[in-house]
C-alpha cells in the first residue's frame, strides 16, 4: 500500500524513525480517499488543508519520539463525534450544517497523542441502524462487495479501515455498531466497558448504552488506540475512575489458564452455516493456544434484542427531543407558530428509521404504557446482565459470532425493521450488560465475505479480551485478508 506500513503501529514507527513524514503518510491517505470514496461513500467531511497543516507541524518537531503514541497516524472519526471546526452531521439532515465549537474528548485525546484527524465517516442517522443505509448522505458500500452493506451504524469507519483509507477509525457502539460492521468488513472493533471511554462530544442516541470504540486492522492497534482514549473525564460523569493499563504491553503471549465459554446452543437457529463453521473452528484455534474452551448456557439471551429496542428507543426519543429547530440544526422555512416549527423541522430533518424509533420510544414512555413496556424492559435488562455476569463468574471470556450472517445485500432488510434489528442478536447482550466485547476476523464465507468472532469479558477486563484476540489473530493471520483492489491477500 504505497510502500508505507498499513498498521498504525507501523506508521508511527516509520514516522518516528524518519522513514516517512507525516505529510507523506497523510498525502497517501488523502489520495486513497480521493480514489475510492466516490464509490464507497465511507467518508463525509475531509479538510485536506487542515490535515496537511497538522502533518507539517508534526514533521517540524525537533524530536518526533515526543509526539505521542499515535504520532503521524491518520485517523477517521465517525460523524457523530464532535470535531471543532469540522462539520458533524451524525448522518442526519438535521445537522447537515452543524459545525461544533469543541472536540469530543476521544478526539481531543487522539490529537494529543499525535494522531491526525483526516475526516469524518458516514454512518446510519444518529447511529440508528445496522447497515449504514440510513444516512441522509447516501449508503456506505462494503469494500469486499460493493453491492452489500458494510454493517452499521459505524459502517463508514469499518469500510474506511477495511479499504485501507486509514489504519484507524473511531466508531460508537450502542447495540453493536462498532463490532458488527467490523465483522462484516473484516477488521477489529472494540466496544469498551460502559464508563471506560468518555462520551463527551458524542451525539447522544441512548445514553445508558452508547460507548466510543476503535476500529483497526489489528488487535495491537486497537489496544494502542483504546489506551489513548480511555480514562476518566470530568466532562462525562459516567466515566469510571478505573486505572487504564498498558494493554499493548500485555499482548504477545498464549492463552494458558484462560477459560472461554461457548454458548453453542445460540448458534442452532438463524445463523448462516458458514458463520457457525468459522466460529466453531475458532474455538479449536483458541484451544490450541492453551485456552480451556467449555460449552456454557447464556440465560435470557433470547430477550436481548426486544429489550434493547425498548430501552434504546425510549432513550432516543428523549435525547432527540433537543432537535427542535431553535438553538441549532435544521429549521423549517415559514412556520406560523412555535409548535408548527417544531413539528415541521423535525419531520423535514429526520429520516424514516429515526422517526420510527422516536415514535416507538415516545409510545413506550407515554402514560399508560410506561409500566407495561419500559419498566418491564428495565427489569429484563437486569436479568440479561445477571445472566452474562453469572456466566463470566465461571469463565474468563464468552465467545459468540459477532453477526449471524456475513454482509447482506444493500436494500435487503430496509423494508423489514425486525429483520434488520435481528442483525444485532449477538451484540446487544454485552451492550445491555455494560461489559466489554470485541470482534476479530475469523475467516471468510464460501462467497469470500469476512466473518467476525466476538469475545466478551467481565467489566473493565479489556486486558483478557485483547490478549485472547491478539493470540488468535497471530495464529490465524485473517487480518491480512483484504478486499481485492486494496492490497494484501484477497479473501475471495
Amino acid at each position, binding site marked *: 500500500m504505497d510502500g508505507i506500513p498499513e498498521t498504525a503501529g507501523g506508521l508511527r514507527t516509520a514516522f518516528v524513525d524518519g522513514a516517512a513524514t507525516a505529510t507523506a503518510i497523510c498525502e497517501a491517505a488523502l489520495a486513497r480517499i480521493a480514489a475510492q470514496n466516490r464509490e464507497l461513500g465511507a467518508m463525509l467531511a475531509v479538510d485536506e488543508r487542515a490535515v496537511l497543516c497538522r502533518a507539517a507541524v508534526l514533521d517540524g518537531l525537533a524530536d518526533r519520539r515526543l509526539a505521542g503514541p499515535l504520532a503521524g497516524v491518520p485517523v477517521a472519526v465517525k460523524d457523530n463525534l464532535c470535531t471543532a471546526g469540522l462539520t458533524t452531521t451524525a448522518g442526519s439532515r438535521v445537522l447537515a450544517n452543524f459545525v461544533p465549537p469543541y472536540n469530543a474528548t476521544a478526539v481531543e485525546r487522539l490529537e494529543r497523542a499525535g494522531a491526525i484527524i483526516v475526516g469524518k465517516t458516514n454512518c446510519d442517522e444518529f447511529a440508528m441502524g445496522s447497515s449504514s443505509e440510513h444516512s441522509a448522505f447516501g449508503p456506505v458500500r462494503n469494500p469486499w462487495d460493493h453491492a452489500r452493506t458494510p454493517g452499521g451504524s459505524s459502517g463508514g469507519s469499518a469500510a474506511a479501515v477495511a479499504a485501507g483509507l486509514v489504519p484507524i477509525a473511531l466508531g460508537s457502539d450502542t447495540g453493536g455498531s462498532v463490532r458488527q460492521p467490523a465483522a462484516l468488513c473484516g477488521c477489529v472493533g472494540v466496544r469498551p466497558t460502559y464508563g471506560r471511554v468518555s462520551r463527551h462530544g458524542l451525539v447522544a442516541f441512548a445514553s445508558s448504552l452508547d460507548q466510543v470504540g476503535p476500529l483497526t486492522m489489528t488487535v495491537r492497534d486497537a489496544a494502542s488506540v483504546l489506551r489513548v482514549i480511555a480514562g476518566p473525564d470530568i466532562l462525562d460523569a459516567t466515566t469510571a475512575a478505573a486505572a487504564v493499563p498498558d494493554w499493548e504491553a500485555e499482548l504477545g503471549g498464549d492463552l494458558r489458564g484462560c477459560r472461554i465459554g461457548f454458548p453453542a446452543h445460540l448458534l442452532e437457529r438463524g445463523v448462516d452455516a458458514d458463520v457457525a463453521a468459522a466460529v466453531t473452528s475458532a474455538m479449536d484455534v483458541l484451544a490450541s493456544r492453551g485456552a480451556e474452551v467449555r460449552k456454557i448456557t447464556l440465560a435470557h439471551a433470547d430477550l436481548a434484542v426486544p429489550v434493547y429496542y425498548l430501552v434504546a428507543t425510549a432513550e432516543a426519543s428523549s435525547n432527540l427531543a433537543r432537535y427542535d429547530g431553535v438553538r441549532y440544526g435544521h429549521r423549517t422555512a415559514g412556520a406560523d407558530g*412555535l409548535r408548527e416549527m417544531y413539528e415541521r423541522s423535525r419531520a423535514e430533518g429526520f429520516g424514516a428509521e429515526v422517526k420510527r424509533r422516536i415514535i416507538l420510544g415516545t409510545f413506550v414512555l407515554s402514560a399508560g404504557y410506561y409500566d407495561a413496556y419500559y419498566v418491564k424492559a428495565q427489569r429484563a435488562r437486569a436479568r440479561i446482565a445477571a445472566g452474562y455476569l453469572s456466566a463470566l463468574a465461571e469463565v474468563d471470556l464468552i465467545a459468540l459470532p459477532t453477526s449471524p450472517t456475513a454482509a447482506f445485500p444493500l436494500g435487503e432488510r430496509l423494508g423489514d425493521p425486525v429483520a434488520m434489528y435481528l442483525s444485532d442478536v449477538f451484540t446487544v447482550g454485552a451492550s445491555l450488560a455494560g461489559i466489554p466485547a470485541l470482534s476479530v476476523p475469523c475467516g471468510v464465507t464460501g462467497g469470500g465475505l469476512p466473518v467476525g468472532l466476538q469475545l466478551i469479558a467481565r467489566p473493565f477486563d479489556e486486558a483478557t479480551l485483547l490478549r485472547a484476540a491478539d493470540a488468535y489473530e497471530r495464529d490465524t493471520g485473517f487480518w491480512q485478508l483484504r478486499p481485492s483492489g486494496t492490497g494484501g491477500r484477497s479473501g475471495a
Partner: protein
Amino acid sequence: MPAEREDFPIARVAALARLRLSPSEEALYQAQIAQILKFVGQVAAAVDAPEDSRGADRAPVIERSDEVKPSLPAEAALANAPDTAGATRLIRVPKVIG
C-alpha cells in the same frame, strides 16, 4: 403488556413526539410499530413470571461540585443557531402566542 396493537395510536404518539407525519407515513409506521410491538411482547411474559421481584439496576450517582467554570463564549455557543437577533445574543423563534 399488550402483545400487539393493530390500533396503535399513531396520530397521538406523533403529536407527543412533535413529529408531523404525512398520511402515508402514518399508515406505514402504524403497521410497522404494530409488528415491532408484537416482536417485543415476549419481554412481558419473561418478567411477568411470579419469581421475578427484581427492579431495574441503578447506576451509581457521581456528583461534582457546583462551581462556575470557564465555558464556551456565547458567540461560539450561538454560532449554529438558525436565526439570531443580531448582536443581542438572542435566538429568534416564531410567535408563541397566536
